[in-house]
């Protein structure tokens, strides 16, 4: 399908690039279908582009590439809507944000994707995790959560 986006212009996406979010996401409840795109110049980054709202896209990264000690504990109730029979079918990405200092990662509400079913959901991870984990070149370690 062909979609028009504000960041990437008109792009063709395959069905295999599409991910359905049955519940949308908090703040983006009406965005139920997304395309996962690679960033042209950065292999560490992906973009979740809404297929229905061309102006809405989220930069996402694989969290352990930036925060190696990140271990997300997701309550079973949060995972069951994704019908994940096997954790090996799941991919976890986190959304990149920005605050006054620089780029941040949302470690509190990661996105879990069922790769086989092509469905996704933003979940709330247990523990005291930051919504805006600041990226520095000399990273502070993540505090161990309770």
């Amino acid at each position, binding site marked *: 399908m062909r979609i028009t986006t504000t960041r990437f212009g008109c792009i063709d996406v395959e069905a295999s690039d599409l991910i359905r979010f049955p519940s949308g996401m908090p703040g983006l409840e009406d965005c139920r279908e997304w395309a996962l795109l690679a960033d042209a110049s950065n292999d560490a980054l992906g973009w979740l582009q809404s297929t229905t709202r061309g102006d809405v896209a989220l930069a996402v990264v694989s*969290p352990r590439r930036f925060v190696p000690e990140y271990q997300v504990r997701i309550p079973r109730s949060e995972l069951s809507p994704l019908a994940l029979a096997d954790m090996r079918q799941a991919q976890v990405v986190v959304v990149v944000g920005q605050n006054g200092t620089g780029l941040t990662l*949302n470690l509190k509400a990661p996105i879990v994707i069922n790769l086989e079913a092509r469905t996704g959901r*933003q979940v709330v991870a247990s523990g005291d995790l930051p919504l805006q984990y600041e990226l520095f070149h000399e990273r502070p370690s993540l505090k161990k959560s309770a």
Partner: protein
Amino acid sequence: MLVLSRQRDESIMIGDNIVVTIVDIRGDKVRLGINAPSEIPVHRQEVYEAIQRENLRASRLEPGDTQDIGTFANRNAARPGGDKPR
């Protein structure tokens, strides 16, 4: 807002498939049990609203804002291809 009084162990039904039960009352803290279909997310309001604000903020990022992100990647970190939840 509909206001109802309930005692411990009493419940409220919302629609035909959501049940909220007073599990415990201790001082000024109430413990609530929520039975809802798994596709309906249930969260503390302040947590949900904070995530909403963060998503809306993040949805305004442009590729130009993220071009340096590779410099923050840890050379010893797990390779891309997915992080598995515990």
